[in-house]
């Protein structure tokens, strides 16, 4: 199964390109830093980048498998971080998490997925302006410590 996972990760490796632009550097740094913040969760290898225009909203949908603990980590450039909020809603549009709910801005959410499901991550910029910023959405997973009932892969 480890080999299969490696193989799956490498499937995305087929195409490689060189591209040098400030936004790319910004995105790369956001991803690298975000992956480190996932610790102790294991990075799932999928890199989700959302380009958010100041004052606008962007979203993405991700699938989470049954039986795993997950950490969703949002990361962006330091100056923009305070101007970014995110919330997570389920298939029926019920709000599951809001990064601003407790008065303190959070950049990550951890949860246990009791069924395989698709969740929508909505990222909002409160900054007023016309620039675009790179926001990395990284996912880490781990088996619950008490994993007697979970699926082993």
């Amino acid at each position, binding site marked *: 199964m480890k080999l*299969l*996972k*490696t*193989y*799956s*990760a*490498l*499937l*995305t*490796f*087929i*195409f*490689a*390109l*060189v*591209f040098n*632009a400030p*936004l*790319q550097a910004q*995105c*790369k740094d956001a*991803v*690298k830093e975000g*992956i480190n913040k996932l610790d102790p969760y*294991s*990075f*799932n*290898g*999928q*890199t989700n*980048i959302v*380009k958010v225009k100041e004052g606008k909203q962007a979203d993405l*949908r991700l*699938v*989470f*498998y*049954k*039986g795993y*603990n997950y950490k969703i980590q949002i990361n962006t450039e330091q100056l923009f971080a305070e101007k970014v909020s995110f919330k997570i809603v*389920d298939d029926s549009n019920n709000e*599951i998490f809001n990064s601003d709910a407790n008065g303190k801005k959070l950049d990550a959410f*951890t*949860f*246990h*997925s*009791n*069924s*395989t*499901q*698709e*969740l929508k991550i909505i990222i909002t910029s409160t900054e007023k302006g016309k620039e675009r910023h790179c926001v990395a959405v990284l996912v880490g997973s781990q088996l*619950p410590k*008490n*994993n*007697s*009932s*979970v*699926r*082993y*892969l």
Partner: protein
Amino acid sequence: MNTYLKNTSDLTASLNIEGEFMQSVAKRVTNNSNNIDSLKKIVSEVNVSTNLFLGENKMNNTTAIMAGGGWIEAMYVISKIADKTPNKAIISLIADQKFVIKNLVGQLENYKSDKEIETLLVDLQDIASIYNSLKQVAAQANAKSADEGMVSIGNNTSYELSAEQLKSILAKITALRNKITS
């Protein structure tokens, strides 16, 4: 691994993709072939460069095709394994692709004016129709599955995939893969 990298280099060269960068990535992959965490980081870096390049060059349809191709290949490998050695966890993983194919079809539909994607969509929608017939069952509630203090999200259900449905998915995935690679 060497054959894989050679094929990757051939493919990227045929797409006029920068050779120097590819060579450097291939070297890093070879040096870290036994380290899954390093491989994930390398793949992630390549992914970022690729996605940004394609997005900035208004080639999001290519990104969608890549996502489709990756999913088809992974499904082909996993379905073959499930067919040879039926394993509850693997069959469950295939059933869970119900969510992924829905997401994938949705993404591809944004670019259906592209002939290649339009054709791919027909085949994927055919596979999605099998997934639409999967039966939803209530999973046994087990409070112990979540660690203490951890929020548990979901509706405690799963989807059942019959042996017939598995065979049908494998046949369609194999046919689609053959169509693409031949």
